[in-house]
């Protein structure tokens, strides 16, 4: 069993997303430690991209600011290498295809090799659907990383083919549109996870639009966990370098809600 699968083995999981280098890598380090301390089961670390087409305004801004601050893929690798010894939960990178494809002289292969060396467990690539996954999935498999597949409210007949080849966990996109806080999530997540369950026991975590403990509990009740990004980035925007304790408090409340949904 991969480390990622294990993260779901002890009840419902809570997965925070943080953009690496926003507002700076030192603060990102403190946030990761606070997130782990507060009960995060797995952490998604975003490598910023200049043109993040799947993100709403909050995460777009974090991407732009992080890049303006001088963060690069190599600096993020060095950062993970330094902090990995203190982080005991699985870490996955979330980014865009070109960041991986255009990395160094070996592209995806070199990127995945470096991931393995610094202790990354998996990749979420926002703009790589099932049909294009092979050139990323092969180097992932070669270096022992899980390629995380996404399933959307519009996936319908695609659900089972995607799920049957999924590794690590399945990222279920709660709503149409880009990332960002939503007041209401209307998709029938239960119906999607049921169809997934017919073909695989790979855990399913729901993300996009979740910000309150109530939403997280509701999403977790019909899946194996909840993912939260924009709400955390908003806290980081508000608190800047002092964000770690605030993010920790928030994650604790979310983790409790998710755990309660599983009992």
């Amino acid at each position, binding site marked *: 069993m991969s480390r990622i699968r294990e993260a779901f083995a002890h009840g419902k999981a809570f997965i925070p997303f943080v953009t690496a280098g926003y507002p700076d890598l030192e603060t990102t380090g403190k946030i990761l430690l606070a997130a782990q301390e507060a009960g995060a089961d797995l952490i998604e670390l975003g490598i910023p991209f*200049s043109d993040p087409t799947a993100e709403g305004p909050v995460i777009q801004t974090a991407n732009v600011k992080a*890049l303006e601050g001088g963060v690069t893929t190599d600096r993020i690798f060095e950062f993970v290498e330094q902090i990995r010894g203190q982080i005991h939960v699985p870490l996955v990178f979330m980014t865009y295809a070109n960041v991986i494809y255009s990395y160094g002289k070996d592209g995806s292969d070199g990127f995945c090799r470096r991931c393995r060396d610094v202790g990354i467990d998996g990749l979420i690539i926002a703009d790589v659907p099932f049909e294009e996954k092979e050139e990323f999935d092969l180097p992932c498999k070669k270096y022992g990383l899980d390629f995380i597949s996404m399933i959307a*409210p519009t996936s319908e007949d695609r659900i089972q083919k995607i799920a049957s080849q999924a590794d690590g966990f399945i990222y279920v996109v709660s709503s149409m549109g880009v990332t960002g806080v939503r007041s209401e999530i209307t998709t029938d997540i239960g119906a999607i996870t049921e169809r997934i369950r017919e073909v695989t026991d790979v855990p399913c975590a729901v993300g996009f639009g979740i910000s309150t403990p109530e939403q997280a509990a509701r999403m977790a009740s019909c899946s194996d966990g909840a993912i939260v990004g924009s709400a955390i980035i908003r806290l980081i925007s508000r608190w800047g370098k002092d964000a770690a304790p605030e993010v920790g408090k928030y994650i604790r409340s979310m983790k409790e809600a998710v755990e309660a949904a599983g009992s």
Partner: protein
Amino acid sequence: MAQSKGRFGAFGGQYIPETLMNAVEELDQAYLRWKDDPGFNEELSVLFNEYANRPSRLYYARKMTEDLGGAKIYLKREDLNFTGAHKVNNVLGQALLAKKMGKTRLIAETGAGQHGVATATAAALFGMECVVFMGKVDVERQALNVYKMRLLGAKVVPVTSGTATLKDAVSEAMREWTNRVSDTHYCLGSVMGPHPFPTIVRDFQAVISRETKQQILKREGRLPDAVLACVGGGSNAIGSFYHFIDDKDVRLIGCEAAGRGIDTFETAATVNTGRLGIFHGMKSLFCQNEYGQIAPVYSISAGLDYPGIGPEHAWLHSIGRAEYVPVTDEEAVQAFEYMSRMEGIIPAIESAHAVAHALKIAPQMSPDQIMVITISGRGDKDCAAVARYRGEEIEG
């Protein structure tokens, strides 16, 4: 493992979020259903001919030919199309397709505003709602086109993210499509993005070379020696090249916007300065930094101000079938002025990039050779910017 679709050699594909996959699949199916349908093609022909003023003229530029003293120069006058550019060819095709699909709303990105105006026009004609995304920088430099779109009933959304130009308008249109796919068709304006867009847009623009070929054969009894067109995403160029691709003796030359020069950072010459990457749904060539971050690009021409190129062009380049040459702002402006004075035709600043390269190579060709330059659009919209470039302020 599912097969990647829409490849031109190693280029193309469908690199988009899962949320959009069903929408592009639906579009692909609809296009396959309608593209060879006689009724659909008849309807499109009527729109092309009666509404958009096709076929466009192939005009022999006698004065220019004599002045340059080399190849015989013909101009493919896409600037005479209704709405003033080649963009209308693609838009009428996509709007008709969207109607067949039962969509009631068109969204589009635009750079110079030509594609936005064309989309707003088609939306008015078909009674559809229309929203156009346009970089804030372009909204400011193309105020007249913004007004036209509003006049036609479209909503224009200024995009402030990133460099606030064409690439950001594409990103924002993609985001909007992700948000609302059921009633909305994304009327993409160039031969780029995920499959099936590069193929659909190419097929609708291929009318340019289909006509050119018939016209030149009728006029000269033979094929041209060279076809020149400007390239941003590359829709007028692929349209101009397409029916000549198998005619190996016809040189196909795409003219890229070099901005202040390909040895500067202020350029948009993708083939000459970019490298292989994945962005906006496709694998192709892009201007990017060593970490794959998309580079801010620059050109005096808002329509060529894009960091990528369509995948079919990347493929034609890779197999050596087409050449892609850089043309600077200064060269384009000189060509803009030259053509205005020499032939009384004010070309779009985009098209002036192709004219500029013709000024370089026509004198080296012999008088029994023939060159066709596609004038993709008219230059009224660019007068204020060119005047400003020459240090003169006029009302835009």
